[in-house]
């Protein structure tokens, strides 16, 4: 772009870079008041231009839109690319963010295949250093084969040097010999054949070599253009050649990454400080195939242990002192009122929903410990380890994410199965989802295991959770081999860095979940409590002659094999509405007669550990709650499969219950505790 002799030389300079690298700061510094703003032809994107005169040369500087690459995927990318191709700047100054050098070098790799000379300004050197990244511009310059200038644009550092380098390159085009990304020989040959086919058909200003490269990369814009440039038979040949080398793009783009990797290895040192090295060290154990799985068991064991150690005692206190006290007080206050009202409030409402409310400490501690694991970044590792474990079992790998959600609640787990495209895999995941022990069932577990097993509660709980996981795995393998053909899938996970948990985040997590629980306790559970109470009274006289007793006794043959009486059967049935109801119902049906003792003591006196174990086993494996069932049907859209799922779970639960009871009897657990 040389002007007439005598006047200063004018160079056209393009300012390129990714968004947020400080390009605008630099542009303002360089052009100041000389800026004028227009639009790119045919586009609504702003075109900013300005001029700078230095040492007798005039630089016309055009600020290109910020783009991550030059693949013509967005209007901005197309503008930047067309500017270089059509206006042929004397030099492009690329501004890069030194603290995210890899991503920035990608743009440079794409610039270097265009017919243009480039100088690189490494901005934000201060930020990079603060992140612990050390960049050596001179080494990078040697590796790239083009001028590299360190910058801190906000402090006007290095700007003059950058423009000097740009001017030098503009003056002396022949000296520009960058080291470009390489292409494998096989694809070089394809490129040569493409160029033969394109020969003489590519109009100016498009360089033939670049068009061939872009065709091989599958660039949509250039493909469209080439189709118009070439006569039909010729295009047919090109198209066939491209079709045969569809995966060449991986090699071409891969070459760029190899090039970036080389540059970074040469010029960047990242002392593994702080969180990164900590994460690497912790992950040696946390994502190890064996240690990781053990650590996961230990982590969940600790969550249970902590829950029992801290919260179970508070729960017992709340139940005996607070709810028990309220019951006694209310009964006294209502001596004048009709007996049914007093009974309803004392036994139905307080005895049922009230007892469930005493779960609050268990819930808070449980969610707090879980939140702690989650916020520190550990649960991501748990997902990773479990996923690998499930691969070993031959399970559909992608099922894991939705299933993992099931620990919170089975409803999102069922909905989460949508991520699986294959309908067989989706169905399998939905059928398995209710086997993931949700928090509601874990609460029942947390309340009842200490009742029946005292100090062994932690082990029994962990064992029951393990049973669920094992049944899930076994059923998964079975269904996978029989009904559905298994598919293998590769997964790549981006694990977050570990960090110190934020109390506020955990607090919010606990609060949201507690609040959701409170709403459930005061609505669904309250209604079911009242209904169970009513059904356990009528027609009477006494509970033994109630509708519920008749229903429960109707199911007695099955129940006997598991050592359960009709009250436990009814508790199981009521858990269909919401799992917590199992305890609420036990509270109403067993609460009678034990004035001073809490439900825990009454149950321990009335039920053998063997029957308790059977009850818990069935609760853990039983049919899903009504909300889960509704979502299952909504997602499967087939009553047949939904009912199949329910029947399957029912059969498994009852079988496991019988095995648990009979096994426990053999171990001498058929004797009532104190």
């Amino acid at each position, binding site marked *: 772009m040389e002007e007439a002799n005598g006047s200063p030389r004018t160079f056209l300079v393009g300012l390129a870079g990714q968004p947020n690298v400080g390009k605008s700061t630099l542009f303002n510094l360089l052009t100041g008041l000389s800026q004028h703003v227009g639009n790119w032809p045919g586009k609504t994107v702003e075109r900013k231009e300005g001029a700078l005169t230095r040492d007798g040369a005039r630089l016309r500087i055009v600020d290109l839109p910020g783009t991550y690459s030059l693949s013509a995927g967005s209007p901005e990318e197309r503008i930047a690319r067309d500017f270089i191709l059509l206006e042929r700047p004397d030099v492009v100054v690329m501004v890069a963010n030194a603290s995210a050098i890899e991503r920035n070098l990608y743009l440079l790799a794409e610039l270097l295949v265009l017919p243009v000379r480039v100088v690189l300004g490494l901005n934000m050197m201060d930020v990079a250093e603060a992140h612990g990244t050390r960049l050596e511009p001179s080494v990078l310059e040697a590796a790239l084969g083009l001028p590299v200038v360190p910058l801190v644009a906000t402090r006007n550092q290095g700007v003059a040097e950058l423009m000097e380098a740009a001017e030098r390159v503009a003056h002396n085009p022949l000296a520009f010999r960058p080291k470009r990304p390489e292409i494998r020989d096989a694809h070089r040959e394809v490129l040569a054949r493409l160029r033969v086919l394109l020969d003489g058909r590519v109009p100016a200003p498009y360089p033939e070599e670049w068009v061939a490269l872009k065709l091989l990369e599958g660039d949509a814009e250039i493909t469209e253009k080439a189709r118009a440039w070439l006569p039909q038979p010729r295009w047919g040949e090109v198209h066939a050649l491209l079709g045969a080398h569809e995966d060449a793009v991986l090699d071409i783009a891969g070459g760029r990454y190899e090039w*970036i990797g080389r540059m970074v290895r040469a010029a960047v040192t990242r002392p593994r400080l702080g969180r990164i090295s900590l994460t690497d060290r912790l992950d040696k154990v946390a994502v190890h195939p064996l240690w990781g799985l053990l650590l996961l068991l230990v982590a969940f064991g600790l969550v249970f242990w902590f829950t029992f150690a801290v919260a179970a005692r508070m729960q017992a206190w709340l139940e005996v002192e607070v709810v028990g006290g309220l019951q006694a007080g209310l009964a006294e206050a209502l001596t004048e009122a009709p007996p049914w009202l007093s009974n309803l409030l004392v036994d139905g409402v307080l005895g049922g929903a009230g007892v469930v409310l005493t779960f609050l400490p268990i819930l808070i501690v449980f969610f707090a410990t879980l939140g702690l694991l989650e916020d520190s970044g550990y649960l991501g590792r748990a997902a990773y380890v479990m996923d*690998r474990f499930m691969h070993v079992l031959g399970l559909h790998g992608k099922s894991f994410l939705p299933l993992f959600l099931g620990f919170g609640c089975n409803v999102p787990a069922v909905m989460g199965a949508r991520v699986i495209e294959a309908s067989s895999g989706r169905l399998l995941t939905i059928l398995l989802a209710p086997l993931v022990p949700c928090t509601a069932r874990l609460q029942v577990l947390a309340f009842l295991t200490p009742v029946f097993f005292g100090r062994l509660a932690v082990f029994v709980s962990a064992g029951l959770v393990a049973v669920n996981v094992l049944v899930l795995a076994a059923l998964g393998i079975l269904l996978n081999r029989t009904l559905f053909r298994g598919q293998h899938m*590769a997964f*790549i996970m*981006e694990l977050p860095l570990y960090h110190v948990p934020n109390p506020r985040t955990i607090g919010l997590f606990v609060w949201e979940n507690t609040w959701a629980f409170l709403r459930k306790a005061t609505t669904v559970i309250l209604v079911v409590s009242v209904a169970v109470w009513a059904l356990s009274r009528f027609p009477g006289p006494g509970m033994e002659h109630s509708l519920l007793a008749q229903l429960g006794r109707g199911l007695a043959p099955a129940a006997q094999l598991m050592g359960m009486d009709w009250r436990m059967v009814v508790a199981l049935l009521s858990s269909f509405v919401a799992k917590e109801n199992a305890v609420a119902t036990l509270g109403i049906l067993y609460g009678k007669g034990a004035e001073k003792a809490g439900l825990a003591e009454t149950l321990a006196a009335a039920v053998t550990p063997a029957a308790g174990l059977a009850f818990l086993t069935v609760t853990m494996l039983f049919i899903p709650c009504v909300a889960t069932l509704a979502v299952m049907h909504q997602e499967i859209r087939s009553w047949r499969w939904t009912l199949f799922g329910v029947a399957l779970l029912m059969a498994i639960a009852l079988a496991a219950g019988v095995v648990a009871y009979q096994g426990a009897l053999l171990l001498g657990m058929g004797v009532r505790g104190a």
Partner: protein
Amino acid sequence: MLERLLRLAADKGTGSNRALARQLEVSPELVERMLEELAERGYLQAVVRGCSISCKHCPLRRACLDRNQPRVWMLTPKGERLLG
């Protein structure tokens, strides 16, 4: 490099980008960028959670266990074809 990454990931069944970065002798950031590119080219697919709305706009976000979770990518049929 991209094909190597894809092959490494597929062989392992499940891999983390940090481990892959170590094997390829590049930074995890570059692996991240490569995974994005493989997804753009149709060899990988980003696995989004099955919830009907994105986590960012989810009213249950604060109550969800699923915030600090890894981004997950899976092989597409195109990717499988390439690896043969």
